[in-house]
Structure formats: C-alpha cells, structure tokens
C-alpha cells in the first residue's frame, strides 16, 4: 500500500516548474488571443466568444472534425491490434530479436517532413513503387486524383510510421509477464486464445493505455506528413484538423479565430483522451496486480 504523504509534492515540483513555464504561459496567451479580433498593425478588439461561435459554425472546420475523428479511430483500430500481434510474433532472443527491434525503430527516427517526402516519391504515379504494384494487379492507382487512394495511402503511411511504437511498448509489456502465469494457464488447459484474453491482455493494460493515448493524441494532430504527401487533397479528402488550422493561422493570419479553433481542438483531444484514460484504467483491474495462485 502506498503511503499518504503530501510532502511527495516536493519530488514532483522540479518537473512541474520546468513544465509550468512551457505549459501555462503559452496556454494563457492563446486564451487571450481567442477572445480578441487581431489584425496586423491595428489595435486588438475584445470580441468575447464571437470567435468560438464562428469556428463552431464553420463548415470546413466541422468537416475536418468528422474526418479527423474517423481517421484517428481507424488508426487506433489498425495499429493497436497489429502492434500487439507483431509484438507477440517477434522472436524473444538472439540476433533476430535484436535486428527486428532496431529495424522497427527506423521509421520512428525519420523526421516527419522526410517521411512525407519519401512517401510522396514512393507513391507517385510516374516514379513510385506503389502504383507499379497496383497496376500489376490491374488497379489504376492514382494518389493525386483518386480521393480513396489518397485517404488509404495516408492511413498506410501512418501505420508504417507509427505501428512500431505500439510494438516496442507491447513487446516490453509482454516480456514483463512472469512465466508462472503461462504455466498456470497451461496446467488449467486454457486454449491459446483464452490464455491471450485472460492472461496476456490484462497484463498489457498499462502499456496499452499509454500506447492508445499517445497514438490518439498524435494522430489527431497529424500535419506535416500528410501536407507533403497529398497537400490535403484531392478535394478535402485528406484535409485534417491541423491543416485547416494552419491555413487560418498562417495563410489568412486570423490569429483570434485560429486561437479559438486551437482551444476547441485542444479540449476535443483532452475530453476523448480522458474518456480513454478512465475506461482503460478501470477495466480488468480486478486481479491484474495479484500474483498467480496455485
């Protein structure tokens, strides 16, 4: 049992001080922007919640929200099960384990803009490998004109880019499960599937919580790679929330409006993440911290 002691705050204080500078000042500044009407060279005017009303009524924003939510949930539905499956299938020791772990890290280590550019060449109708493969199977793949192709290419790029993160976390989580659990399940005659469901999965809950939260937050803010791969098109098929935000903030230089959008965007991520956090930390907590009996 943990000791109840509020003096533990002193241990947390250094971290809070460093983060506080970064977290509070910009956040409050953005709140300030969001209630003002700002144009270059003119004094800012207080407009209250008007910016928020305009954002919520904007069709481009609403469309992007729907597209973004669909995208992020799709990413989670693919990457989390795939990541766990790969982690289960990976070799446990020897040079193959080392090589796989290092190779899995490669996509994570490439900056986002290079990822976007490489995928752009990789999928370009006249230069890339992907169109060649699809043409071989008789499908006319065209990223620049077909919005379905563009959308699924973005999904494939993100799976390629980030599934490794889920694998590394799940792999570390799997290796922390004591062998005794599996021996007990074997003695009880549990099938592999039931062993996975009742032994493995509950013990992975913590690492999967962090994997789900990280992947959700980051996919919800995806920008650079998509911008370089498709530029948000064709049409608005791959225009995600950050893209709309950047257009408003950088291109139209509408700071008040884009600050309001940023905050709505932020609270959206916050609320969904908090729901994930609550659900994932409450399910299956029954006996996951008890040593195996028998």
């Amino acid at each position, binding site marked *: 049992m943990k000791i109840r002691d509020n003096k533990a705050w002193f241990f947390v204080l250094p971290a809070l001080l460093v983060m506080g500078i970064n977290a509070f000042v910009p956040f409050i500044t953005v709140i300030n922007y969001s209630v003002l009407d700002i144009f270059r060279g003119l004094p800012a005017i207080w407009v209250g919640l008007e910016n928020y009303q305009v954002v919520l009524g904007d069709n481009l924003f609403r469309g992007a929200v729907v597209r973004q939510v669909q995208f992020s949930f799709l990413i989670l539905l693919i990457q989390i099960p795939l990541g766990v499956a790969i982690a289960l299938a990976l070799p446990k020791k020897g040079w193959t384990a080392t090589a796989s772990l290092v190779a899995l890290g490669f996509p994570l*280590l490439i900056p986002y803009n290079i990822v976007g*550019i490489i995928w752009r060449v990789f999928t370009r109708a006249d230069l890339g490998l992907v169109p060649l493969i699809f043409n071989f199977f008789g499908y006319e793949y065209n990223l620049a004109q077909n919005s379905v192709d563009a959308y699924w290419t973005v999904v494939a790029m993100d799976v390629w880019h980030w599934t490794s993160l889920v694998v590394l976390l799940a792999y570390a989580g799997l290796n922390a499960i004591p062998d005794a659990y599996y021996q007990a399940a074997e003695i009880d005659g549990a099938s592999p599937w039931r062993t996975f469901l009742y032994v493995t999965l509950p013990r992975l809950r913590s690492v999967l919580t962090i994997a789900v939260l990280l992947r959700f937050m980051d996919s919800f803010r995806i920008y650079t790679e998509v911008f370089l791969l498709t530029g948000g098109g064709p049409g608005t098929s791959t225009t995600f929330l950050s893209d709309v935000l950047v257009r408003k903030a950088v291109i139209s230089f509408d700071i008040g409006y884009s600050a309001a959008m940023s905050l709505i965007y932020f609270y959206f991520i916050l609320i969904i993440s908090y729901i994930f956090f609550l659900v994932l930390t409450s399910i299956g907590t029954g006996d996951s911290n008890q040593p195996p009996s028998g």
Partner: protein
Amino acid sequence: MTRKRSIWVTLALIAYFVFLALPLLWMLSMSFKTNTEILTTRSLIPQTFTFDNYMEILTTPEWRNSFLVSLTYVGINMIITLVVSLPAAYAFSRYSFLGDNHLFFWLLTNRMAPGAVFLLPYFQLYSAINLFDTPYAVALAHTLFSIPLAIWILEGFMSGIPKAIDETAYVDGYSFFAFFRKIFMPLIGPGIGVAAFFSFLFSWVELLMARTLTGTVAKPISVTLSRSLGAEGWDWGVIAAAGVLMIIPGAILIYFVRNYLAKGFALGRV
C-alpha cells in the same frame, strides 16, 4: 513463454517487415541517385551510383553544424528530463498525495496542444527570456513532451521494485540520497535507458518548435533541410541522404536499450 510458432505467424511477420522495409529501401536508393535519375527513372538499384548527396551533408559546415545543434538540444533535453522525472516518478510510485491522479493525467495533456497557434507564444516567451536561437530554448520546449512520457515510463519500472528495498536501506542507515543513487538507480537502470530513448526519439523528429525557436545561429537539421525544399525545387537526393543519416544515432540507441525492452516493463500506475 515456449510455444510452437506456426509457419503462418512467421510468414505474416515477414510480410510486415517487407512492408516496413520497402519505403526505407526506396529512401536508401534515392540517397545514392542523382536528382535527374530520381525524377526520370523508376528503379530500386541506382544506375549512376553517386555519393554526392552524402558528401554534401558531410562536408558542408552548415550541415555539420546542424547535426551538432540537433544532437546538443536532444542531449540537453534528455538530461533535464531525467533529472526532474526521476524524483517525480518516485513520488508517484511510492506515495499517494493530494491530486496525484489528476496531476498524472495532466502531465500528458501537454502533448495535446496543436502546433500552429501555440508556436507564436513560444517564440515570444523564449525571446523574452533571451534564449531564442539557442539549443536551450528547443531543449526546454521539448521537455513538454518528454517529461510526461519519462515520468509514466519510470513510474512503471519503479513500481516493479518492492517497497521493502527502500525500507531495508533506511534501516541499514542509508540517507535518502545515498539510497536513491547507490541502490535504487541501478535497479531501475533499464527504465532510465528506455525513458532516455523515448526522450531522444520525440525530440529528434520534432520540427515545428525547433524551427520556431531558432534563427541563424542554432539551426537544427530541420531548418537546414528546408533549404533543400527551396526555390530551385526539391533536392530529393539530399533529403533522402539526410533521412538515412538521421536514423543512425537513434538506431545505435535502440541497440543499447534492446535488452531492457526485452526484459520488459509493465507501467505500474494506470
């Protein structure tokens, strides 16, 4: 865990690694091609094999300086992150205190702020404290992502160490700091390695803040790279070569923490 691996599992795994490898091989191949070849032919094996792209990066002072700047802020970020995260993670793993659960979640909310608009106040903030255009500015800004993750990971490793170890050390007359340094830190060594890796990773690939907080002196790789995306069209070969080179430091780091990953950790608190 000893299970028979079916041939299908192995085949599926190989299929995934092929999917993983293809874009990487495409990048590797691009890095050895001339721009003309990249834009006119489609082949994995370069026809006119060239080292020019690598030479441009390795010999220009600007590129070398950028690699140095990026490594510097990533390094500073790792040090700050570990120094403040270790005690915080210890508090979360050993004590319950007022607001601990909310604080634990709040830490992670700092990852959620969308870039574009938040960058402007960061620029103002770091200009105001005279850190603009230094590696310190980027390192400090990146702690926003790295500290929460490090605390979550370290807390998991620490919760795996029985509390009896702390108590025994105190009975043996260790002071808190002596115990933490001589007994506790070696025990959670793997956790420190893994936390350092994740701090490295997210700081190394982050572009927007690094670009916003630096000017002409401390140019990170991403800024030097955007020159290759300049007016005369993209310098595809150099971009690919930069991608290949940027994998190397992180790959070395994974090689060193691989055993810790294989040893396993199961975050404790959540």
